[in-house]
């Protein structure tokens, strides 16, 4: 299914490519107090490239989901290349967003959060964020965002023109012993792929500090709960 030339911004090919750029943005600039969502695609085009992949040019806007009800929109432009390779390799993204540097209002919150949880006795652990009813406790909000940022590494890597990933839920978070002054968190995240409607489960180990940002150290695909095909009666 080739989409080449100018693309309709509201149609899925443009939106899928923009979603990839969004994942890239979050891996680079996401934090416990900042995570972006796609607001709108303004312009999009695609062309075949010599090496056999497809390159999208995008003009889109994002908003920071951490800033209450709809913070200001950030305008971005990106080139997204989906390579054509035998084995899947993740897309390559080049991204420019206006005024990114100016969003540093969260530095204080980040440091407070870091100080609170870096202590050796800290052993945060929680399940189902949000819960079935959409609730996320105040305390869990930064962990929810961290999970989304970490999940973005996976979503970016796993993306193709036939996928459109979003993090549906954090199944669990378990703090591990801090290492090299990084918060260490083991997440199990559930990704939702829009075209196939599949829920895909990944376990991952991520580190974070205000200085180093989010790094993903290990990822492991997990089969969905096989034992629960029938509810216990």
């Amino acid at each position: 299914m080739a989409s080449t030339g100018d693309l309709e911004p509201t149609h899925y090919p443009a939106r899928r490519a923009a979603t990839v750029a969004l994942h890239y943005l979050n891996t680079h600039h996401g934090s416990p107090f900042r995570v972006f969502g796609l607001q709108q695609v303004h312009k999009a085009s695609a062309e075949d490239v010599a090496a056999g992949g497809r390159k999208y040019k995008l003009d889109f806007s994002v908003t920071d989901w951490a800033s209450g009800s709809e913070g200001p929109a950030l305008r971005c432009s990106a080139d997204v290349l989906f390579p054509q390779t035998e084995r899947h390799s993740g897309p390559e993204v080049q991204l420019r967003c206006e005024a990114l540097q100016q969003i540093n209002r969260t530095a204080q919150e980040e440091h407070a959060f870091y100080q609170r949880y870096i202590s050796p006795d800290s052993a945060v652990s929680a399940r189902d964020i949000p819960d079935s009813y959409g609730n996320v406790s105040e305390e869990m909000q930064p962990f929810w965002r961290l999970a989304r940022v970490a999940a973005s590494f996976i979503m970016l890597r796993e993306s193709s023109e036939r996928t459109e990933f979003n993090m549906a839920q954090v199944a669990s978070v378990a703090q591990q012993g801090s290492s090299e002054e990084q918060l260490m968190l083991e997440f199990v995240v559930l990704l939702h792929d829009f075209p196939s409607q599949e829920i895909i489960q990944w376990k991952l180990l991520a580190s974070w500090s205000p200085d180093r940002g989010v790094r993903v150290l290990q990822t492991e695909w997990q089969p969905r709960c096989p034992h629960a095909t029938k509810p216990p009666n």
Partner: protein
Amino acid sequence: MRVYLAVIALLAAVHSEELFNGDHVLRVHAESEDHIQILKELERDVNSGLDFWTHAVSTERPVDIRVPHSSLNAVKLFLKKSNIPFTVMINNVQELLVREREEMVHNAEMERKTKSFNFAAYHDLETIYKFMDTLVDKHSNLISKERIGSTFENRPMYVLKFSTGGEKKPAIWIDAGIHAREWISHATAVWLANRIATDFEKNRALVPSILGHVDIYLMIVANPDGYVFTHHSPNTHYRLWRKSRSVTSNPKCPGVDLNRNWDAHFGGPGASDDPCAEDYRGPSVQSEIEVKNIADFIMSHGNFKSFMTLHSYKQLLMYPYGYSGTDAPDKPELHDVATQASKALNSWHGTVYKVGSIFHTIEPASGASADWAYLRGIKYSFAFELRDTGKYGFLLPADQIVSTATETWLALKYIMKHVCDHPY
């Protein structure tokens, strides 16, 4: 005149009853000025115990009088002797009052139940079904509940019919919850049911006139088995369940995607033949009892003019086709209606929806209900993906239910009005 005074004396003597047991209401037809004068005299006498519900003014209008049981014979005799015709309108006021009071208590109870129903919360199937009964009870002149069949696990499938009467009026179909995990769709439909009823009762703009033209059929839970499954436990295997709960050829993978099982290019792109897939189309077209029940119902009704299905998430308002990228013949009109409807939606809270065909906006999807309806000649066929765009996704917080439902209602009203204004 003496007869008259004697009767008054008699009436005064026997009148002492406080209760209305056995009291009648007589409808008296004055035929002359004389009659009118007699009745006026009768009314003026406060000791008579007669209770004039309407007054003797002219020969054009009947006079209704509540007559205590003990005075009944005397009054009837008097009227006969004066040649004033009458009929018995109510032959036991107490009985009527008891019934009325019972109804009032019942209505107050229903009022309390529906007023106390928490629309800003997600409810399980049993609670939703109880709510439906309460609503029907409270608005029995407008709403009825029809059982259109059972699910795979043998649960009833109900549709609420909103109708002001008439034979086979053109109808509008709205369903929610065909995908179990899309809880905001069920919650929105519950709110909608109540809103349509109260808008009609309070004579609020558009609803009475819409219901003058069409009947509305609202199916709040199109996939009851799936919905029950999502409530089974907080474990995401349950909460994020999408499909039905039918047994498939793979014992480890039950369930069919009910929105890929319709007779609309079944087996085409955008649907899987693997029972373990979330978009498993099922072994054959309309193999799923839930789909068959709805399809049969709509086809046998034969006069549906619009079909709308509520889903989540992504904030999209779409029209056919899903199975193909070709423009539907009515695309220009459908796109225009959807665009205007999305603007109406946006006016409530600023929520932005994108508009387009299912195929182009989401992805190719064959066997989808909106396509099925359109291919059956139901022109105004739309699919909604409600809030949000991914932050919470399927797990939308309950505090967004009412604003989501309200904005969606504005879009639906726009579409319904368009349907009424453009009969075909």
